[in-house]
């Protein structure tokens, strides 16, 4: 657990030092007026792809000899990814924060973000209640 806490600490420092938690950077990203956010996400994805390819090619395992616990998304649920993604994108543009930065922004001392965190929990609750009526 200590290692996981330290990785979280490093991630929180990274997104703050890289200004990823700044509302201004997200607004700028959605106006396509700076390379910064595209460089951040693009380099993370490219390096991550190199990691996954190497891990597959060389049969890297997680500690204890288990297979890497990579997310497996179900292609049949594409409607939920598109529609849910669109709803999330609107919230991302308004609050300037995706779920990670919601919490990091609070740590950085911008206390009104608590209201957005409460909103995110209410949204999660609402989804849990109405999800059977939504396309997936």
């Amino acid at each position, binding site marked *: 657990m200590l290692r996981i806490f330290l990785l979280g600490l490093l991630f929180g420092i990274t997104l703050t030092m890289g200004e990823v938690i700044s509302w201004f950077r997200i607004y700028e990203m959605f106006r396509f007026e700076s390379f910064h956010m595209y460089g951040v996400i693009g380099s993370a994805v490219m390096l991550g792809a190199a990691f996954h390819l190497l891990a597959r090619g060389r049969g890297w395992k997680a500690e204890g000899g288990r297979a890497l616990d990579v997310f497996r998304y179900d292609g049949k*649920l594409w409607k939920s990814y598109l529609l849910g993604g669109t709803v999330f*994108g*609107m919230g991302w543009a308004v609050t*300037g924060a995706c779920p990670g930065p919601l919490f990091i922004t609070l740590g950085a001392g911008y206390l009104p973000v608590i209201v957005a965190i409460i909103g995110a929990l209410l949204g999660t609750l609402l989804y849990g209640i109405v999800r059977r009526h939504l396309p997936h």
Partner: protein
Amino acid sequence: MFDLQPWPWYITGPMITLTMAALLLIGRRFGISSNLRTICAIGGADKLSDYFQFDWKSQRWNLVFVLGTLIGGFVAKEFLLQDAPVDIHPSTAEALQGFGIQDAGSAFAPGALFGAEAWSNPVAMLALLVGGLFVGFGTRWANGCTSGHAISGLSSLQWTSLIAVIGFFIGGLSATHFLLPTLLPLL
């Protein structure tokens, strides 16, 4: 590296990959929005929907991760990052100032939403609450956010995550270009 103010994209991006890779190698996954479901489950939401009836104790490690990120934000802002304004593109700053966001280009985050003055502005409170609601609802519907889809999903070459990321941009671009021009002047 900690002396750099702020970190350029070519340090920030690889550090994100490092976080994901390290989590995978110790047997975990890099996905943050699932914590919202976990917190609801701990709070008793399992009585409202079976969506919250799962073994949340197996997800405690992810809450520890989030606690780490929160303290990381504190450490970075208090001790590492001098109070440098975010150096956004001049045309972005100009557009924002046109909408009444006067601290664009001279602050880390807009005071109208994240400063003490936000508490007394009902529009700011509503924007944060409803915006946050969309973040929670949308990421759970899409079964992932920027960490789970854009970083973990795209880097493991899953086309379904690309669909999610296209959704992120459809929503983000619509809100930025059709909603914010009306909303921002009210802040």
